[in-house]
């Protein structure tokens, strides 16, 4: 029996070989089969909504950044310190994505900025509809910065447009110089990379230069920041880059 369609033919092959072996194969089992054209991109619905989110943010002059990184890479701490560094100059608001709890939202709120927590339950990433609903509640002010802290995950969030101006991949120096090679999608999708916890470097065997070189083999245009958020190293460069983004167009 064909293991894919259970048609009863005594064939030992994968379905990739199926049509080649005995096409036209009567999958209708005696009934006339016709072909129905679909041509539907399965990401189209999300991408369309992301386009609407982007238009809405552009209209209000809001620069949105989608922060993506593994759990524990330092996304929330980077945000806390960024808010403290920038907070006086430009309005900032945050959408916090986590599977459960509002712990990160509480930390961000304590830094003194607007925040809405999105809990995805079993979900491993934020999509455009979650961000769209989050924005209804958050109501970020015009000409401001918006951070979307994605669910801690270096894989799936890379594949979903949420209407951001840029994706920013956050990885800590403890994750090793080969991380970009092992998780290439997100490094390709991102416009910037923030390497966090740089103050731990004296205790690690890791080659930061090699890490950056690996990331740029995936994405030669990646803007890179080396930051020790708690100590403040590198925050000025990161915040200067963010300031330059406010007011421009999302341009996609």
């Amino acid at each position, binding site marked *: 029996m064909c293991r*894919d*369609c*259970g048609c009863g033919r005594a064939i030992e092959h994968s*379905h990739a070989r*199926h*049509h080649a072996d005995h096409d036209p194969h009567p*999958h*209708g089992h005696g*009934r*006339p*089969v*016709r*072909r*129905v*054209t*679909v*041509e*539907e*991109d*399965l*990401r189209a*619905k999300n991408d369309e909504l992301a386009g609407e989110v982007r238009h809405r943010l552009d209209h209000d002059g809001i620069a949105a950044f989608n922060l993506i990184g593994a759990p524990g890479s330092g996304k929330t701490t980077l945000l806390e310190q960024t808010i403290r560094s920038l907070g006086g100059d430009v309005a900032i608001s945050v959408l916090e994505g986590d599977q459960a709890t509002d712990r990160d939202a509480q930390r961000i709120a304590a830094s003194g900025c607007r925040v809405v927590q999105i809990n995805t339950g079993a979900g491993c990433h934020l999509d455009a509809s979650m961000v769209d609903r989050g924005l209804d509640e958050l109501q970020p002010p015009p000409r401001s910065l918006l951070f979307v802290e994605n669910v801690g995950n270096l*894989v799936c969030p*890379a*594949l979903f447009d949420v209407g951001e101006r840029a994706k920013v991949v956050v990885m800590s120096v403890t994750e090793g110089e080969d991380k*970009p*090679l092992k998780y*290439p*999608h997100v*490094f*390709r999708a991102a416009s910037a990379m923030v390497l966090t916890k740089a103050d731990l470097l004296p205790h690690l065997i890791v080659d930061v230069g090699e890490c950056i070189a*690996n990331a*740029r*083999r*995936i*994405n*030669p*245009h990646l803007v890179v920041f080396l930051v020790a958020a708690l100590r403040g190293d590198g925050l000025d460069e990161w915040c200067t880059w963010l300031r330059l983004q406010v007011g421009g167009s999302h341009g996609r």
Partner: protein
Amino acid sequence: MKGIVAAALRCAGTAKVVTIRIELGRLAGVAVEALRFCFEVCTRDTALDGAVLDIVEIRARARCRACGHEADIDTWCSSCQCGSFDRDVVSGQELRIKDLEVFDVS
């Protein structure tokens, strides 16, 4: 996966679906095994139960921004023959339902 099932059911109408053909780019970020597993789970006890998922893999191609050379690639991390890593991916990110094979139930 729910999108695949919904689109197939919508396009098939009252006809019985026997095959769903999907074009999947090598760099789409979707694992074939996971797609097959989810398809089986999501179609169970629906009008698509028993339909064949025919996955057509689309090769990934990139054009070099430095020299213009176009070539197949297997990963995001690959350099052109000229040595540049600065390449535009021109195909290989597809995740698209191409068509269905159906028969009419009278």
